[in-house]
């Protein structure tokens, strides 16, 4: 049986600062599927994820996804140093209308740190807090930009377990990562064939629009 894709793009072109960096992208992501984007630095992995997340408009082509189905996690975790771990998470849980944060704290092994200010955490602990945010969004499609940065082996295993559970529940993951996410069924997607020649997007004036 064919299931409707959770996210699909057709003839998508992605621009960064008005310059098209990727073009002709066609792929679909089904529920329960993980796709890992590969490509050298600067090819446009982050730009693609930001475009999919709706932060930047596509330069061409279309993106199809159910409304309110995407959750984006960028390079930066967006956590406030003067708030505690629990306060940070509780804010995002309320923003997304989620019930509670206990599950997310437990899944990312943050329970012992719950009352510590986020500013005092190590880089890896902060990253775990940032990833725990995804769990309180309740969104099915996760867009992850380098989720493994600063994580140690134990945290990588936690991340793999969380991603695996998310996929088993019918969620999808689209990640840009140089490291192995530890997902057995993950499909690799090489962006190199879609690299644009660095041509300016449309007319010159549009670069400044």
């Amino acid at each position, binding site marked *: 049986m064919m299931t409707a894709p959770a996210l699909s793009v057709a003839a998508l072109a992605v621009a960064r600062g008005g310059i098209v960096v990727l073009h002709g992208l066609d792929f679909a992501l089904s529920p329960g599927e993980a796709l890992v984007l590969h490509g050298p630095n600067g090819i446009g992995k982050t730009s693609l994820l930001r475009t999919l*997340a*709706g932060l930047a408009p596509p330069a061409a082509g279309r993106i199809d996804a159910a409304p309110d189905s995407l959750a*984006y996690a*960028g390079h930066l975790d*967006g*956590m406030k140093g*003067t708030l505690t771990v629990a306060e940070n998470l509780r*804010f995002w849980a*309320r*923003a997304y209308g989620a019930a509670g944060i206990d599950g997310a704290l437990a899944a990312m092994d943050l329970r012992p740190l719950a009352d510590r200010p986020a500013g005092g955490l190590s880089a890896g602990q902060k990253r775990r807090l940032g990833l725990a945010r995804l769990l309180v969004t309740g969104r099915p499609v996760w867009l992850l930009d380098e989720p493994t940065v600063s994580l140690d082996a134990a945290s990588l295993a936690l991340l793999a377990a969380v991603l695996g559970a998310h996929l088993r529940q019918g969620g999808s993951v689209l990640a840009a990562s140089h490291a192995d996410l530890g997902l057995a069924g993950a499909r690799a997607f090489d962006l190199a064939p879609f690299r644009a020649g660095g041509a300016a997007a449309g007319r010159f004036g549009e670069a400044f629009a």
Partner: protein
Amino acid sequence: MMALLLRDLRLAVRAGGGFGLALAFFLALVTLVAFGTGPEGGLLARIAPGILWVGALLASLLSLDRIFALDWEDGALDLIATSPLPLEGVAAVKALAHWLTTGLPLSLAAPLLGVLLHLPGPAQGWLALSLLAGTPALSAIGTFGAALTVGVRRGGLLLSLLVLPLYVPSLVFGADCVRRAAEGMAPVTPFLLLAGITLGAAALLPFASAAALRAALR
């Protein structure tokens, strides 16, 4: 929305959040003017409405660049923009949080400083009222300026240059309201104009701020 307001208020009162900074600046500025002008009561009373309003204006300017810049730097703005919170609502809530941490305490402290500047009794109430009605416009306009300069490095100075001219109508009518009350004239007309500016700014500028944020994030 409520969660965002609580978060911003909590951030403002935590260490380094800058709560009280605007109030302390206001107190210092007005006191310095009193020292600088000398103990001549009549002169102080005459310049008091203008000084108090200019002080409030500059004090509310101080913390404007933090409204979006901090969330921009640590990536929270990206995440807020992709969350279910509408950016127009985010801009309105940010302006409200800014007003609650600067405009409101300023308005409440102003009558105390009015006494210091020999402001006549009947004008004290109008001073507090005019600041209460006028400072929300300063926060709304300032939030718009902060949204315009969010991606700019060292954007604080540019922000001041953008925002200060837009503060002029509020300053003119606010100070006029207090001056009229001090001279025994009817202060209601400038007060209504001041309130009108605030209502207009609060109704329209969140949309402009959201558009500016969208342009900055892409």
